[in-house]
């Protein structure tokens, strides 16, 4: 039972952290929704896990030990999320490159005598 309590506390702390981050506008909207969903899901999971409420679900997926199912889906989520992040990062660096290049061209135009 101690483990369940710990899981509940951790998920509540995580929920508080994500709400705080959203209120301080440290996250863009899509990511804010994403993390809010994740933290609410972990809170619900940690509340349900001790009562065996998700055991039928894990049985459906053929996973004998319910907490393992949480791990598997958690891992899947993390992989997909980091992939999405690296796609976003690549897009941002491509945009940054274009911006820096155009800035350099504009600066050169201003430097030219008579350039406005």
């Amino acid at each position: 039972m101690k483990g369940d309590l710990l899981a509940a506390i951790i998920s509540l702390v995580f929920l508080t952290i994500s709400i705080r981050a959203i209120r301080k506008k440290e996250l863009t909207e899509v990511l804010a929704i994403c993390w809010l969903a994740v933290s609410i899901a972990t809170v619900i999971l940690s509340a349900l896990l001790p009562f065996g409420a998700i055991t039928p679900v894990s049985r459906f997926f053929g996973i004998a030990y319910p907490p393992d199912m949480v791990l598997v889906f958690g891992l899947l989520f993390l992989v997909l999320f980091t992939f999405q992040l690296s796609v976003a990062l690549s897009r941002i660096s491509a945009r940054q490159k274009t911006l820096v290049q155009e800035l350099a061209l504009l600066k050169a135009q201003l430097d030219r005598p008579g350039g406005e």
Partner: protein
Amino acid sequence: MTPAELADAYSKTCVVVPAYNEGKSIAQVVQAVQEHMPGATVAVVNDGSRDDTERCAREAGGVVLSLSLNLGIGGAVQTGYKYALSQGFSYAVQIDGDGQHDPSETHHLFESLVAGQADIVIGSRWLGRGNYVAPRNRRYGMKFLEAVVSWRAHSRFTDTTSGFRALNRRAIALFAEHYPTDYPEVESIVLARNYGLRVLEVPVVMKAREHGTSSIRGLKTLYFMVRITMAVVIGVMGGEDS
């Protein structure tokens, strides 16, 4: 090509010189270009250098395109091509800022370019002229790249890492739009071929670099090989521009 035709071509040429912390050699490079390619415009792309590259290049009489952040060689060179395109130049020449390429060799590149026989002409160290010697481990790497690129580009290339090249308007427009980021010299050959451009190699003489070190050495060489092979084989040319 008559001297008059060459002079006319040079007057419509933008010489793109990417430079990252090349304060020691950049002025010499700019002056050498002005001396051997009279009438050409020199555009030094200062890739976020931390030394006095920008001041030296400007004092030597070059146009300076100064990048606020270090973009790496690909982003820097592309800036030069964007400049050449927007300023309406007919030709562009790429010359490294470290003094490795000799501007007095440029007329060898222009022969086929001006005659309209090629869209890109690359100066190769390995076609018989000059006596450039590369360290042994680099030679193996170059051989390997040569094989990969020759296979993907459907014709033989001997000096895939050469950054000494001349482009016509069509090639300038392509590279202003699409240019690989990380190891652009090698990838851009395949890229240009994929877009149906005619790419030609001609023999040139190159010097060993005067100052600074190659951006690629040691363990990075291995990474370089893997990345290039991936990029060239998959055809992902170092990231989409968006």
